[in-house]
Structure formats: C-alpha cells, structure tokens
C-alpha cells in the first residue's frame, strides 16, 4: 500500500511543477483517503470533483468564476478515459463480463434452435443425444483465464452456463446445424484446458474398457489375485471343442457287446499351468490344488477353461490362495451368471489377513514375555 501510494505521489509530483498550487491540492485529493477539505468560499460555485481534473488552469485562476465565459465555452472532455468494462467497479470485470456474454450466447442459441424446431426437445430426442464429454478447465485454471480469484460458487456458475451451451452444441451437431455448432464451439473452446482434455480422454478410455468387456480379442480373461504377500496373474481361455463328426454316435447298436463308452463323448479336459509348470508339479500338496480348483468346481466349469497363471511372492498356501482368487474372478469374467454362487462361497473376497507386525515390549505380534512377580 505504501509503495503504491508513493508511486502515485511520484507520478503526480512530476506533473505538479507546472501547476498552480490550488490544483495540486485538488488533484491529490483523488489519491488520498478521507481528506478533510476546507469549506469552499461562500460565493463560489460547487463543481463536482470528477470534472475538476478536466478543468483548465484558466478556469480556476482568477478571483471568482466567470459565469459568462464558462457558459459560452463548452465544458472540455475529461483527459482520462472512463473505465472500459461495465463491471469495472467489481474488480472482477472479466468474470462478470464473461457471465453476461455466456448468458447472451445461451439466449441467442436458444432462439436459433427454436427457429429450427429443435427446441423444446421431446424426451425421446433428449435420450438420443450423445453424452456430454466436457473438458472444462478446473478452478485454478479458470481463475487464470478469467483473471480473478474464483470461489467454488463463482466457478460453478461459469461451468453451469458452459454445460448448457454444450448441450445446445450437441443438439446442433446431431441435427446437422453446422453454423450454429461452430459458433458455439468458438465460444466454449476458450474455456477448455489441456488438463481438462487429458482428463476427458482418460474417462473415455476407461468407459471404452468397461464397455468392451473383460475378455480381449482372443477371448482370454486376465485377472489378478492376491493373498498374504503373493500376487498371481491368471489368463483363462475357453477350451475349444473339436468339431469332428466321428466323435458323434453314428447308430444305436443293440448289441450287448458294444460298450457304452464308445458312443458317449470323452469328458472335457483342460490344462492348468502355473509358472509354466503343471499344477500337479507346482503344488505337491492336494490341499493347495483343491484350493486352486475350487472356484471351477463350484461353478461347474471344471473342464471348460485352460488356465495359465504367473505367481510370485509368499509361500505355497499364499500363492494357492492368490491363484484361487484370480481364477474365481476369471470365471465371473467369462460367465457372469456364476457371480452369486462364488460370492456366497466367499471366493471373490480378497482375504485381508496379513502377517501382523511385531510390537515393542512383546516377543512377537501378540506373544508376551513371561510375567515375573518381582
């Protein structure tokens, strides 16, 4: 504050040298705060302060005001221009001007859409509009764009107007009203930011991944399971059924000698590889093998999928639990209908139990040292 006041004083001081002392006081008055001025002489005419700076020295010199001369001469224009923006006195002129302009853009585009019978839009047409994918700048960036510190309420006001404009732009786009669409885009693109565009692209990609589904283009599911400190990555793919006609039973022979096995197809077999090793070699204990295959058993998908797992970390039972969780998730990815079955069997829950840390003053996590009486 002091530096600004000094700077202003210096500016005026440079101009003061050629001015009469009377103007010196009056000019400084506009800079200072609450200056108590002396009362004007009784016969002088009141001149509003705003026009004092505009008056020439000739008008202020002399004993009194020359009424005739003043009325004959037209009042001169102010040497300084008026503030440019109508919202100047709010000290956030760009923000309020932007609000006014956005509102007028909204009303104009509304009128244009109405003229083309695109507004008011019936509900079925509203449903058919493409979804909004905004890339607006966040609050900090918008504060830079609008050159004013924005509160949450001020930011929301701008974003609401931009959203409505964006909706009109989408309507114009689907209905092939290109001029209106381009006009609105010209306005709204000034409020988008690089960060906003990046965020929007991330959202679109995430939505695409969700819509695409859990299987990749080869029909494989990729799931992750964790237990204790083990992490397993599991790929599951459907077992291809052979399409030969020779496997089908040709004719029902009534001979007792023919065994029933010849007519029925062989049961489906699938491979389960863990770290490129068959399951029977990797997990010697039957309990671990059972744990890995339990989700498939409960879902009735025992021979339906080939499983390839990569697991590391932890010990045998931890790895077995991790693979079991990943296999359960993979079953749900392939056959969503089994989800309630596996959920009820608690096979879709990542076991949160981890090794508890040792604490000071205790021998282990919970084990206390022997209590001594003395």
């Amino acid at each position, binding site marked *: 504050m002091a530096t*600004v006041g000094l700077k202003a004083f210096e500016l005026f001081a440079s101009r003061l040298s050629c001015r009469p002392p009377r103007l010196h006081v009056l000019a400084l008055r506009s800079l200072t705060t609450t200056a108590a001025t002396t009362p004007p002489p009784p016969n002088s005419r009141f001149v509003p302060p705003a026009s004092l700076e505009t008056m020439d020295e000739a008008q202020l010199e002399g004993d009194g005001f020359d009424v005739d001369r003043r009325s004959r001469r*037209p009042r001169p224009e102010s040497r300084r221009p008026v*503030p*440019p923006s*109508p919202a100047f006195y*709010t000290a956030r002129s760009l923000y309020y001007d932007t609000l006014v302009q956005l509102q007028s853009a909204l009303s104009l585009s509304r009128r244009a859409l109405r003229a083309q019978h695109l507004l008011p839009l*019936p509900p079925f047409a509203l449903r058919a509009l493409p979804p909004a994918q905004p890339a607006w700048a966040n609050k900090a960036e918008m504060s830079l764009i609008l050159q004013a510190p924005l509160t949450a309420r001020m930011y929301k006001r701008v974003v609401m107007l931009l959203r409505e404009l964006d909706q009109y732009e989408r309507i114009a786009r689907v209905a092939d009203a290109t001029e209106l669409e381009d006009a609105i885009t010209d306005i709204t693109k000034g409020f988008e930011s690089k960060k906003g565009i990046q965020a929007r692209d991330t959202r679109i990609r995430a939505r695409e991944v969700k819509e695409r589904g859990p299987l990749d283009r080869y029909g494989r599911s990729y799931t992750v399971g964790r237990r204790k400190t083990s992490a397993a990555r599991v790929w599951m793919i459907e077992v291809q059924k052979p399409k030969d006609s020779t496997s089908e039973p040709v004719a029902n022979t009534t001979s007792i000698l023919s065994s029933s096995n010849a007519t029925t197809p062989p049961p489906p077999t699938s491979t389960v590889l863990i770290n490129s090793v068959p399951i029977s070699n990797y997990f010697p204990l039957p309990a671990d093998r059972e744990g890995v295959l339990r989700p498939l058993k409960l879902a009735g998908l025992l021979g339906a999928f080939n499983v390839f797992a990569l697991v590391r970390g932890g010990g045998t039972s931890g790895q077995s639990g991790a693979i079991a969780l990943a296999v359960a998730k993979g079953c749900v990815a392939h056959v969503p209908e089994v989800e309630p079955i596996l959920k009820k069997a608690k096979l879709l829950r990542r076991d949160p139990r981890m090794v508890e840390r040792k604490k000071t003053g205790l021998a282990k996590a919970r084990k206390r040292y022997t209590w001594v009486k003395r």
Partner: protein
Amino acid sequence: MSLRSGLTATKCLQRQRVFPRNAFRTTYTAPNSNLESTIESPDDWHLMQENRARFKLLFDLFNQHGSTQTRKNTFQPHHTLSCPLAPSQTTLSALVAAGAHFGHTTSLMNSNFLPYAYGSRAGLTIIDLEQTLPLLRRAANLVRAVAQRNGTIIFVGTRPDLQNTIQRASERLGAQGYHIGERWLPGTLTNRNQLFQEKSQEYRLTPDLVVFLNPLANMNAIRECAIQHVPTVGIIDSNADPRIVMYPIPANDDSPRTAQIIAGVLSVAGKEGVKAREEGQKTQQNHAQRILIKQVLNGEGNV
C-alpha cells in the same frame, strides 16, 4: 310408448370400440409425441424438424383467425425488463401493479420516513406514491442531465433478483453505465489505489452518480459516496432514513418488479441524455464543417 328406433338393446349393450393396436402416435403424425418414437439417425432428426415445421405452418395459418391479442401487443411480465417505461409514461397504476406502495411493518418504520408515508394497512406502512412519482421524475431528469454531460453512472443492486435489471440498465447507457451486482468492495472509492492499482491512474474512477436499488444493504457504499461527494439516488423503503441518499425515491425495495420499473425509467432517461449528447456533438461538428467550407469558399472567392 316405444324406444327410439336407434336405441335398440343390442346397440346399447354393444361394447365400446377398442382403439386398434397400430394407431399409436409417431414422429410421422403428431409433433408432441413422446411415447413410442425413437431417433437413431440424422434423418430422424430432420423428419422431426419437418414435422414440427409443418405443424407450425398450420398453427400460423389458424392464428390469423381468432383473437387479435398477440404476445407482442399484450403485456408480458418481462416487458418491465426488456422494454421499460419512459419517465413520462410512468403512471401511478404501473407502480401500484408492481407493489411499490408496500412498506414494511409499522413498528419498523423509520421516523424520518413519515412525510412519505400515506398511512398504514394490515400492519404495513403504505407509501404515498403521489410523492414517489414526482421524485422519480426528478431523479430521471438528474440521470438524463448527468448522462448528457458525459457523466458515469453506476447501478448498484446486490440481490440475486436484481442482476438482470442492473445489467440491462447499464447496457442502455453504453460506455457511461456500470453495474455492481455482487458486493460493493469496501474502498472502491476511498482506497482505489490498492484495489485498482495502476488502473486508478489510467481511468477516471470517480463516478458522477450512483443509483442504489437496495441502499440498506449497501451502507458502506453510501458512506464512501458521501465521503467522495458523489451524488446518490436510492429506492427508500419505509424502514430506511430518506436522508442517506441525495435523491430518495420512496418505494418498496424488496419487490423486483418495482426495482425493474425504477431502474428502467432511470436508464431510459440516461439513454435519452446520451443520445442528446451525441446529437449535440453532431450539430457542433456540422457547424464547424460549415464554417470551414465557408472560409474555403471565401478564400477562393477573394483569390
């Protein structure tokens, strides 16, 4: 006595004809159908537009017959905002219709407001609009005179329902009109160096007139204007002291319609002042040009 021939038992007991299943509305039939219609391609959008345009043609055709009252020649509530009254056109009935005569409860009446009070009814102070109207016209004359002399006018209305009003009012005054809609920053006039920094030296900051649509909420601003000797106009309600502003307009400050009328009247007067100034400048220019031409002609004639 016999039944009428048409009213046989079989006819009366006949079931009502059920609407056929396929008689539902689509985009091809009625414009306001919203049930079974779907939009898939741009052609569907064009079809919808065409259908609505067709309906509108029919509507316009029949609109020529019937009532002569249209949206344009009847009063619409937004007219006080978009096409306000001129000072000479303002009537008592317009003010009464806007509810300008409703003051606050009699127990809250400011004792200095008594000269402007007509009486009380239903516990409310009723404002004397026969005094309001000449005071409004006086304020309008003031605004016109200030605008004609290239003065700047600020419209202050710090309630959400006053935003549109002050924006339109300041627009009408062109470069000489300003508005403050959210909050009068303390120190706008008295601490301008800190608030506006280098712009305080660049522009002419002291306004020539400030119009308050809700003065009681902006006492800081009124005080600053008094310190800086800026004339003020304000809508004074019955709980306010009329002496706080230089040109009080006693009326209901809580009614947005009243504020629209008053701000509209003042801004229209300001617009007249701006126009008068421009015309004065034009006549001056023409005058100067004529003198120049005469000089040139005389000079040539002499030579």
